[in-house]
């Protein structure tokens, strides 16, 4: 058994009002690829931040190579050999590869001569280590996402990293680049470097890592068999992993299986594709249907949705709404003319005007309808509409004037939904409706979605939450890497459906 390079014992982290981590234990060995898994909100990010020195735990101890340590800032963790490669790039786009890889060369002191030849040569060593065949003098902004990721790993290696933490490393790279990356990780592992691998992609994890630790609700999920906090991958099956991550917290049980065979087709595409959604896709959406689009993070569903609403332009293929061929040119057009509303997964930056009031947010999509005298808006009508939604959706806010920024996640989502419903759309595309939302509000939102479909609207629900998918969808389309892998009628039986969905993804 190789030595333990990093150990976290009984780590607790409390934020105002809540425990993000509750007595969490985590152990990484030398020369190990260790996966940290859990749903959104399970505590993964907080744990990562504790490991990398961004947050100080309220309780518990951290040991690096057996010695107790305390990080007062990220630099401390970095100096002990703990490196992070985040999801978004932390490179200097206008600098060369060498300048990025060897960044240490000019960040330790202010007044030092930078020897270009030296850093180019040094960088070449690390570029070779990661197998990246570009000249060290290339400017980073000319490289692809995958190549930039390799640069970040080369950078970590150049500072003698012993533990490299990778956060969703293959989410924005091409398939071939992902393969190269995974092979590189294995190679480096064999040379004694430890990796902490955080990913949503279950198959990838099962195929790559040595050990898995699962978090749920801020706590370790121990193995049912051994009671250990982590399990070697050999002892882990797909189902077991998913069960550990997800648990079974179904509250909203859908009424019955609904059948839509004869219903009108409200939205259809035939081999449509765009620059960002390059694989041709065809599907149908029927009236009153709650269609689920399932896929792992990065499956390309958001890009496809953007194509449907006109945010990106189709370069090939056709789109039909209510049977008529249309060309979606802009969001404004699809919103106002065709009544398709898209609610973004990035609620804070794309769904809400955080520094505006609840009232203003809801009104923002229907300003035209609120006119009274000439072209002036009627504050009374605005109040009425907002009141209506606050009541119907049970939005908890002390007043309509409250800035949306101050609402809880669930209520923010309800405001988003109100904005979407205000224009009375026929088709609603909701991207990740309940991510970051508490259980109770989750089921409220599911109920809202269900009721909408009962009243004749059609919904496409994009989610990476398998349990949610099976709970509410009538039909499920499975996506993988930008392609539609298949369609399933939802029997609402979890074991059955999760197996079928996984089979489509693993193909």
């Amino acid at each position, binding site marked *: 058994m190789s030595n333990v390079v990093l150990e976290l014992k009984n780590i607790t982290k409390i934020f105002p009002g809540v425990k993000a981590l509750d007595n969490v234990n985590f152990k990484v060995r030398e020369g190990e690829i260790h996966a940290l898994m859990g749903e959104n909100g399970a505590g993964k990010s907080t744990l990562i931040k504790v490991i990398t020195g961004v947050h100080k735990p309220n309780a518990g101890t951290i040991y690096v190579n057996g010695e107790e340590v305390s990080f007062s800032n*990220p*630099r401390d963790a*970095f100096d002990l050999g703990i490196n992070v490669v985040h999801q978004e*790039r*932390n*490179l*200097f*786009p*206008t*600098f*060369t590869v060498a*300048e990025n890889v060897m*960044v*240490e*060369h*000019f*960040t*330790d*002191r*202010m*007044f*030092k*001569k*930078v*020897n*270009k030849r030296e850093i180019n040569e040094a960088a070449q060593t690390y570029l070779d280590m990661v*197998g*990246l*065949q*570009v*000249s060290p*003098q*290339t*400017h980073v902004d*000319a*490289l692809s996402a995958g*190549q930039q990721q390799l640069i970040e790993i080369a950078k970590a290696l150049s500072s003698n990293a012993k533990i490299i933490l990778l956060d969703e490393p293959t989410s924005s790279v091409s398939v071939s680049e992902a393969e*190269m990356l995974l092979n590189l990780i294995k190679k480096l592992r064999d040379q004694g470097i430890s990796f902490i691998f955080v990913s949503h992609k279950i198959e990838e994890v099962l195929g790559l890592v040595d050990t898995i630790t699962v978090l749920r609700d801020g706590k370790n999920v121990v193995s049912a068999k051994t009671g250990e906090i982590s399990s070697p991958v050999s002892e882990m099956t797909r189902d077991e992993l998913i069960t550990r991550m997800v648990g079974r917290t179904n509250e909203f049980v859908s009424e019955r299986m609904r059948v839509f065979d004869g219903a009108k087709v409200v939205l259809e595409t035939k081999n449509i594709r765009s*620059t*960002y959604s*390059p*694989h041709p896709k065809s599907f149908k959406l029927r009236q009153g249907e709650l269609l689920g689009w399932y896929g792992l993070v990065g499956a390309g569903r958001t890009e496809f949705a953007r194509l449907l609403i006109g945010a990106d332009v189709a*370069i090939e293929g056709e789109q039909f709404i209510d049977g008529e061929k249309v060309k979606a040119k802009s969001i404004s057009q699809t919103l106002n003319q065709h009544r398709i509303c898209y609610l973004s997964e990035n609620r804070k930056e794309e769904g809400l005007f955080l520094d505006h009031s609840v009232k203003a947010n809801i009104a923002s999509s229907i300003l035209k309808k609120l006119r009274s005298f000439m072209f002036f808006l009627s504050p009374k009508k605005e109040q009425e509409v907002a009141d209506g939604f606050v009541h119907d959706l049970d939005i908890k806010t002390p007043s309509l004037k409250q800035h949306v920024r101050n609402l809880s996640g669930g209520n923010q989502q309800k405001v988003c939904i109100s904005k979407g419903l205000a224009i009375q759309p026929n088709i609603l595309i909701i991207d990740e409706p309940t991510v970051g939302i508490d259980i109770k509000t989750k089921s409220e939102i599911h109920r809202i979605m269900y009721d909408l479909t009962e009243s004749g609207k059609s919904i496409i629900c994009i989610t990476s939450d398998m349990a949610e998918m099976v709970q509410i969808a009538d039909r499920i389309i499975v996506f993988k890497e930008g392609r539609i892998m298949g369609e399933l009628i939802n029997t609402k039986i979890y074991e059955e459906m999760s197996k079928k969905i996984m089979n489509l993804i693993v193909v």
Partner: protein
Amino acid sequence: MKPLLKSNSLNKKKFKFSNSLGILVVIILFALLIQTRSAEFISRDNFITLMRNSSIIIIVGFGQMVVMAGSGLNVAIGSIGGLAAVLVGAFVQRVGLHWGLAVVIAILLGACCGALNGILITRLGSTGEISWLVTLATMSIFAGITLTITKANPFYNLPEGFTWIGSYNVGGVIPVMFIIAVVFAVLIWFIFKHSSFGHQVLAVGANQRAATLSGIHVTSVIILKHIISATLAASAGILFSTRLGSIHSDIGLDWMLFSFAAPLIGGARMEGGRVNVFGAFLGGILLAMVSNAVVHLKVNVYIVEFLQGVIILLAVGLDRIRAIREEHRDRMERAKI
């Protein structure tokens, strides 16, 4: 992995080179064009005048470029220059100091103005908008101090040694100021190409978040770059008055606009992360030529300001076109499965 990107890296090098080359071509063509209308344009005397005029523009441009590199601005550059000049006048004529000492003290005080700017900006959040607002305010403050010192009376009768700098031509051909400008250019070039400080400034401009994560002390970098900027501004203000022969409170009043022109023409990015020292140098020369040409052609002298703005727009416009072409090419590549 196919080494397909060697060409791209050369592209970037080519850009810097071609930018400077482009400006050089424009300069030459422009000179020839004006020569056809006014025979004295290309002449020894005019060259000397041009070199003298461009020195100030170049140094002021460098002052702004240093701050721009780290994604910020220094709108107070003109008033720092004016203040420094006026301080020299005051120290010499009211305190009785030797002009050399006065110059040194004035530049040091100018540097302090820069430190003040840097400290305020970093205290208030270190973004581009904040540096705009802070330096807008300090511009007014420094200008007010300048006015209070001079009480609107210029300083005349400056010491001979002082005015000598402004009028002497080395070897009869090259003005002292121009040499100083060249020296500054070499220094700045060295700072950005070969010093860790220069790299840190560019890093902060390229990606402030990544810079912090890499352990760069962003606060120190910002303060230091403002100090350098102010020092350059002070030097420019003092140099300008060596040439005028008098020091009045108007010095630097219109510098804010053209301080950005030379660096932008040279290819520096407003958002930071990239500078082009040689390009900015040539840009300064081009701008000086334009003002000079206007005098020779005897056209409305006010046209210079108009042309300044147009040239900036053209320069960044061309830069933008090039960026669009690259984006387009990337997008086409991505669409192929």
